[in-house]
């Protein structure tokens, strides 16, 4: 009897993982069918499987607009969620997100810098990526001033550097042209996949490298969340793994933010949705966060580009549909394992 229960539990677990593994692909596939340019289901199938029989417009809409956009949304969602989960573990703090250590504000300043001084365009991606990485490096250095990089000093370094870049962003907004540059900056901060095409896929390389670094270190994230002293006593090379995990999360977040703009909420809350489903073991949490983040972001982007005739910024929708969903899950699981002890 016990044995049978155990087998059923195992089977249930496996099917849950399979479901989450295919979920992002289902979301991407579905996104090909939805959008303002009207296409019937049959037309989309024709475009996908008989591309020679369709008009050039139809072909472009599905293959060059909807598909790259959905893939990018999935990658960005996964990158932000995985980085958020990794930061939460390493910093031993369930309230931090992928934007801590100054990545978001650094990237934001880089974007402003390009929009105002370099005329925007492609350069925006590179400056925002560069300043995001710079901001984290500065936060790391600021944390070191204290002596050795303890977790608290590193978080403080992140807070200070974030504030600095936030001030720099304000200066940029202050000097920006209020009719052309200021709206561009504002929209950048709300996040969007509207301009994504295949040329942006270069960003998947640093994003992928960052996520792989976190993925291979995911058991060590558990151990690091016990604190430096215990992690060392348990045999983990704390310096090396902090560098790998924080470096990986920075790479992933910076390259995500530089193509999509800042998208809040996901990096904080998706890991918690993951925790409610599989528990806190990062061995499972990191992959599940990637899958949930990817699927969630694709769905958000579908809504962003189809709910009204003009596009809504994704950053708005993540919070609007994410929050009630999160509260529902919290109620359902009663956040049962958390205590304030």
């Amino acid at each position, binding site marked *: 009897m016990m044995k049978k229960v155990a087998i059923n539990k195992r089977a249930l677990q496996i099917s849950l993982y399979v479901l989450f593994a295919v979920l992002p692909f289902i979301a991407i596939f579905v996104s090909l069918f939805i959008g303002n340019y009207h296409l019937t289901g049959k037309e989309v199938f024709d475009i996908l499987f008989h591309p020679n029989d369709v008009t050039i417009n139809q072909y472009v809409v599905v293959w060059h607009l909807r598909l790259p956009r959905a893939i990018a949304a999935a990658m960005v969602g996964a990158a932000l969620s995985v980085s958020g989960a990794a930061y*939460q*573990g390493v910093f*031993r*703090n*369930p309230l931090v997100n992928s934007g801590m250590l100054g990545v978001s504000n650094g990237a934001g300043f880089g974007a402003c810098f390009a929009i105002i001084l370099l005329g925007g365009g492609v350069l925006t991606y590179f400056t925002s990526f560069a300043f995001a990485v710079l901001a984290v490096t500065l936060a790391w250095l600021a944390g070191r001033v204290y002596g050795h990089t303890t977790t608290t000093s590193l978080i403080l370094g992140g807070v200070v550097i974030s504030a600095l870049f936030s001030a720099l962003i304000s200066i940029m907004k202050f000097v920006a042209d209020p009719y052309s540059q200021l709206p561009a900056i504002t929209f950048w901060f709300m996040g969007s996949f509207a301009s994504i095409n295949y040329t942006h896929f270069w960003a998947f390389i640093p994003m992928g490298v960052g996520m792989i670094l976190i993925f*291979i*270190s*995911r*058991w*060590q994230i*558990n*151990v690091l*969340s*016990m*604190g430096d*002293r*215990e992690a*060392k*006593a*348990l*045999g*983990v*090379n*704390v310096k090396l793994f902090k560098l790998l995990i924080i470096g990986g999360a920075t790479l992933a977040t910076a390259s995500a933010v530089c193509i999509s703009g800042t998208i809040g909420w996901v990096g904080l809350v998706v890991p918690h949705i993951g*925790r409610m489903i599989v*528990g*806190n*073991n990062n*061995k499972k949490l990191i992959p599940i966060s990637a899958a949930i983040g990817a699927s969630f972001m694709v769905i958000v982007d579908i809504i962003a580009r189809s709910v009204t005739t003009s596009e809504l910024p994704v950053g708005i929708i993540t919070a609007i549909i994410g929050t009630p969903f999160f509260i529902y899950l919290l109620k359902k699981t009663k956040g*049962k*394992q*958390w*205590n304030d*002890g």
Partner: protein
Amino acid sequence: MMDNVIEISSLYFSYGNKEVLKNLSLSIPRGKIVCLMGQNGSGKTTLIDAIMGLNPIKQGNIIINGKEIKTLKTMDIAKQIAYVPQLHNIRFPYTVKEIVMMGRTAYMGLFGGPKKKDEEIAMESLERVGIVEYADRPYSQLSGGEIKLVLLARALGQSTDIIIMDEPTAHLDLKNELIFLEMVSKIVVEEQKTVLIATHSPEHAFYFERLQTNVEAALVKDGEIYKIGAPSEVITKESIKEVFDVDADIITTLTEDGIEEKTLCLRKTTNEKE
């Protein structure tokens, strides 16, 4: 040469200008419990950190199972020494089994996670400390005594010769304290592990002595080992006054079986200062 698992010779350590350990030497043979006692700030924790390789050694030497600690990597030290921490503030409610499996990390290679075998060893360790039924419970729901047993199981799963405990029974009620001490004694007797316990309670040393466990008390004063030996010989009225700066009496009673039992009875703080 005796079978000393820990061999410390003329160890010095200082934080900045403050000298914490001075010419400290200590040898601990296999299968022994050493109760490390001393005032707050006497250097106990610094010594423990040095043995675990957390403090870089500038002068002196620590040899663990024949190897200099300086030459060992973090991972190799973790295969020799397990650690049961004092305060344990976990932010994420991992399951008990997950916590215990973390004790296996040193055996998982640089990257990688627990294998089937690590899970089996974790369950076995939980069984040894008698809380296997808690395996799937969230750690955050356990009581203080249960948490200490989980940490002890984690240390056992780490399969080391040496276990270091930092005030393991602080915050425990009497029964849980006793459960924990019984478990420690059992481990040392059955598995010939060497246990170093930093404790504030002389009763711990007396307790182990009563059980006829192989135990020594080491009194630390101003970064040196002031005295080391059998608890009933080392923990005396004089040494307590010298090391802890308090007046106390050691009361000896005879049990029904004619065994001498010692208890510490505190009198008052010593005010005279040289």
